[in-house]
């Protein structure tokens, strides 16, 4: 039965307001990035930009934006790959194995994710100093992996739990080792979970600011959020360049989400068992 027109209209308006509301800051940044310096400083502010790309040129050339982007790509990709490599077998074990105190392990993981960064910043800095991890990418990846693991394990464990046990058992009887059953049968079926965990981990590592600022003082190693934040000089606030850089920093994320979204096919596991 189709809903009455008024109800559908209300729904469309509601969705439009929610989407516009969350997009508004981004839209404002896109508009700002395409303005000229005069337009940016105009009071009252002008809404429509004149389409200048000066700020993009300045951000890329003067502020070496691609250097920051490259650093972020390395850090975020490494974090995602390492975190998922560890989280996948951990989540599978937690979902499948009869284990006393499983609830405590999962709760413990959640607690790790809840630590305020400021509390662990000092100790982590000390550890990295001792092992020579300051001003290196791996020194940043290490705490990122620690902090993103709990979420990745939780997401994957939830997906593994919903897959029928019999599939892994059928694979074992068909000749697979536990590992083979995991990557030949269970992992392809948990792909939506894997993509979700990957996107969230990547976004975290891409956007993280505090640790990156603390552990990377060498401009050649700094990641995007730190790089953009340091655009500002002692007496200047280059809004235009910051807006242009932020737009460019967001594009890879949008691209990734769109790419991974194709992998998140719901109902992939339907037909495995009765239903």
């Amino acid at each position: 039965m189709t809903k009455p027109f008024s109800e559908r209209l209300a729904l469309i308006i509601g969705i439009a307001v929610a989407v516009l509301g969350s997009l508004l800051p981004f839209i404002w940044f896109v508009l700002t990035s395409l303005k000229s310096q005069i337009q940016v400083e105009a009071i009252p502010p002008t809404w429509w930009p004149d389409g200048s790309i000066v700020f993009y040129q300045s951000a890329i050339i003067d502020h070496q934006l691609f250097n920051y982007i490259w650093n972020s790509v390395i850090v975020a990709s490494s974090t995602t790959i390492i975190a998922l490599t560890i989280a996948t077998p951990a989540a599978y074990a937690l979902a499948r194995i009869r284990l006393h105190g499983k609830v405590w392990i999962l709760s413990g993981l959640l607690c790790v994710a809840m630590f305020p960064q400021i509390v662990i910043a000092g100790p982590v800095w000390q550890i990295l100093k001792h092992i020579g991890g300051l001003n290196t990418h791996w020194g940043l990846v290490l705490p990122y992996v620690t902090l993103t693991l709990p979420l990745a394990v939780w997401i994957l464990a939830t997906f593994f739990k919903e897959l029928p046990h019999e599939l892994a058992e059928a694979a074992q009887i068909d000749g697979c080792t536990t590992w083979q059953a995991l990557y030949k049968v269970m992992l392809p079926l948990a792909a939506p979970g894997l993509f979700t965990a990957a996107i969230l981990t990547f976004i975290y590592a891409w956007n993280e600011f505090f640790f990156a600022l603390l552990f990377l003082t060498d401009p050649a190693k700094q990641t995007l959020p730190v790089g953009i934040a340091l655009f500002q000089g002692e007496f200047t606030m280059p809004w235009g360049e910051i807006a242009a850089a932020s737009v460019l920093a967001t594009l890879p994320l949008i691209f990734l989400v769109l790419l991974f979204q194709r992998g998140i096919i719901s109902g992939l596991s339907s037909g495995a068992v009765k239903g």
Partner: protein
Amino acid sequence: MPGFALTHLHKSFGNTSVLNDISLEASDGEFVVLLGPSGCGKSTLLRIIAGLEAQTSGSVSIGNQTVDALPPRDRDIAMVFQQYALYPHLTVRENLAFGLKVRKEPSSVIEERIGEAAELLEIHDLLDRKPKELSGGQRQRVAMGRAIVRKPKLFLFDEPLSNLDARLRASMRVELKKLHQRLGVTMVYVTHDQIEAMTLGEKIVVMDQGRILQIGTPDRIYHQPSNPFVAGFIGNPPMNLIKGTVQANHKNLEFQAGDFTLRFNARVDITPTLGSGSAILGIRPEDVGLDPPGAIHITLSGTIDLIENLGGDHIVYLVAQGQRLVARTSPDSRRRAGDSITAYLLLNKLHLFIHEQRTLLESYK
């Protein structure tokens, strides 16, 4: 060569014991059915044979080999699961090939085996479909195909037909029986459905509460149940079980339930050891007649409580001399609920259980 053998198997989960001293042997090519109510431990037993569950103690051997230390993949078995467990991301062809590919069989062998299985199960047209595009019956065939292509020493079936509707279940039952005859491989089949057990099994193992209560051919299980549980579990409607007491001495054995008394000649070898105590007298509904039979019988007078018309048969519920009885009779349109009748119990079909064990009856006095 034995098909498989289980020796003194025990299994507990924490403090809960689910299997107790299970010993069972099957010869090569035998169709063994594990039958029992849900929670009796039959599926756990099957999983232990498969290696998916480890026994607490005892030993499992398949063929001539003890497999206790072997993982499922090295036991040379195939299993058909209740929920089919087809790999949803693979086509039917890939599902069938999966086990052979993992074992690195050459592709010519894989193609040949898939061809054979597809022909046997008539699933040629389905080979390029994904499981979600198949009906329940088709999925069940593919699941069987996946087991067949491997040519294992032992087939395990975990209630494979329980998700199908009644008509499909009946036809798949026939196909399974034919399949067993063609392949001649040892099969273990878990079910709670007595019709499946009786029609498929060459050897039926009746289980309850983690114990084996009787092992025997379908005929033996039906006609000579070794205890009241087996007597009541097999048969539809189930055997009439009348609870009472016995008193035995060297001369005779007397069974009494309310105002109903039966006296048997004593068997000098066993009767005096029985003493007295509670006992159960059993008789199958088809051995309770409402017309005088030719064979020796006893009579009880009573009234009809209810008649169920099954077309070919009538199931008549009676109250006779204080006992509730069920009779399976040929249809007789003159009978009505409330009618006074005489029930005839065939003497040579009586079963007496004393101390939960079947007692041989020599003759009736």
